[in-house]
């Protein structure tokens, strides 16, 4: 396993391995809730909290959870944290809870969270997993904030609900719609690629060893070998 410094684990999620703009994970909420900055921030922080908590718990239990039931166990843990966040938000931030609507519950199936649980938390210490959660959650929030800022300013002529003089009269509603979301998403991915010169992440990092479906996938060379043996 490649040894990484604590600082690099913390920082890689922001740009180098940004879950939205580099790993292209969690696209559904990214496009759905970024029509306003407040919704984007709310979703980003909620997902980050779930990611940090689930990473810590899954890492702490990594030697206890049998391999056969690891995915259902991760899902139960993640769903538990999402429901807790939902209840707390409904109680203490009801306006944000209403604004996020169904997307809050859909954090359960956000592939960033399950992905980090499988790829990182299940193989690293609690501290490293917590740092990974902070980094990836922060990167997700940052990405949503950038998307939300561009879309709200251009699409609604406001920022965090505060109307911007002049822009208010020349807002472009396209940016608040789904097509505008895809457009801004594409442009920001291009910007991140330009900044990192297209070398944000090594393609080696995406090998079969890190895939959640590695044990069943027919394309995995290990499975091909065992299939031949079985014959």
């Amino acid at each position, binding site marked *: 396993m490649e040894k990484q410094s604590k600082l690099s684990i913390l920082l890689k999620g922001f740009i180098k391995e940004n879950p939205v703009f580099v790993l292209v994970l969690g696209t559904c909420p990214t496009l759905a809730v970024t029509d306003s900055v407040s919704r984007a921030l709310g979703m980003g922080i909620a997902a980050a909290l779930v990611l940090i908590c689930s990473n810590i718990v899954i890492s702490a239990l990594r030697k206890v*959870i049998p391999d056969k039931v690891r995915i259902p166990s991760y899902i139960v843990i993640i769903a538990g944290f999402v429901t807790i966040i939902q209840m707390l938000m409904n109680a203490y931030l009801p306006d944000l809870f209403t604004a996020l609507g169904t997307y809050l519950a859909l954090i359960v199936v956000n592939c960033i969270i399950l992905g980090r649980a499988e790829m990182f938390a299940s193989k690293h210490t609690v501290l490293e997993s917590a740092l990974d959660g902070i980094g990836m959650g922060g990167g997700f929030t940052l990405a949503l904030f950038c998307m939300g800022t561009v879309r709200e300013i251009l699409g609604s002529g406001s920022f965090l609900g505060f109307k911007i003089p002049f822009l208010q009269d020349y807002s472009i509603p396209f940016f608040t719609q789904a097509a505008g979301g895809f457009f801004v998403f594409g442009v920001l991915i291009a910007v991140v690629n330009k900044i990192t010169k297209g070398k944000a992440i090594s393609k080696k990092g995406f090998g079969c060893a890190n895939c959640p479906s590695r044990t069943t996938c027919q394309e995995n060379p290990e499975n091909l070998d065992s299939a031949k043996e079985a014959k």
Partner: protein
Amino acid sequence: MNDSVKSVIALVAICLVVTLALSAVNYVTAPIIAENNANAVQSSFGEALPGADGFEEVEPAADAPETVKGIYKENNGIGYVVTLETTSQYSESPMGITVGIGTDGIIKNIVLTNYAETKDFGADYPATYVGQDSALSGPELVSGVTYSSTAFRNAVADAYTALFAVADVAAGEMSDDQMAAEAIGEMLPASLDNTGACKVEEADGLFVSTSRTGYAMVADKVAYVTDAFGNYIGSKSFDEAATEDASAVEAVKAAAADAYAKVSEKNSERIVKMYEDAEVTTLVPAGVQSSVNGAYRFTSGGATYYAMTTSTFGFGGPVNIMYVVDENGTIAKFKVISHNETEYYGDVVSQSAYTGGYPGQNLGDISDDVLVISGCTFTTNAVKTAADDVAAAFNAVKEAQ
């Protein structure tokens, strides 16, 4: 210990711990959430009825609609606030609505207190109800959000129903198309779409349901209804003083028969395209009050056939189908005339791979393998209803001969 047993124990333990954690958080947050919801409803009262100075709760009637959660009378008598809770098909989360209605029966404002749908019908939609009376003739349903906007509209209508039972509030006047739609929907349930509403179009004073399964004319607050073939069914009065007029009955029968004749011209052309030597006779069966809106008999190649057209509601609207059957009730042709089903899903209904399964099947005994379109519940229900209705109409036509 066996691996499987270990796995089960680990998973059960995790579930128990998560459940305990959720119970603890729920214990703390549930009262706060309940208080927030109550405050949201209370604070919406003043917004719903501008100028209000305190409210007094009024006990709703015992048979008040379930959507009505509370009725509150304004202290100075300027109007009432009704709190409503409804759900739509796509969300179990209730939609909370507070509507302020003046004593003149006009909606002063509507506030959404809870709404967690994935697809919003837009912040402007509730505002389209402001200034409306109990007829609710102005607001349209929102395309693409039909279920939510229908639930919203029905809830507001329920508010009036509950209010009329306990308060002295002026009733609004329904428009002619509303009276026609209500009368057709009540007398011909096949005209109701999947949201339970009947929509009508008007041409020269004659209203026809979108499925063409019923016609109506309105005169002096009375709606006169015929079935798809122009057979008079009955009338519905929207004013206690109004009575049925014999000349209006004759007028609607004549207009509906004329409309059916025009539709039959097109259907005859369709039949001739399929059977070049066909000599088509238009039938006017009595007692066929279903989705069947056209019945024809024709001969071709020495054999006698019957053609029936039906219109049932799929996911995207009416699915119009023509069945051609022989004298024994065996299907000879199955043609989808028009539909608005979703591409790659319900639109399978019009593709030859699906329609090709019908010929040779017996009416009333069509196999589910032929009828069912996998993954498309609404479209499947539409074709199943059509098949049942055609079988019943065919029997009625044969018995009448």
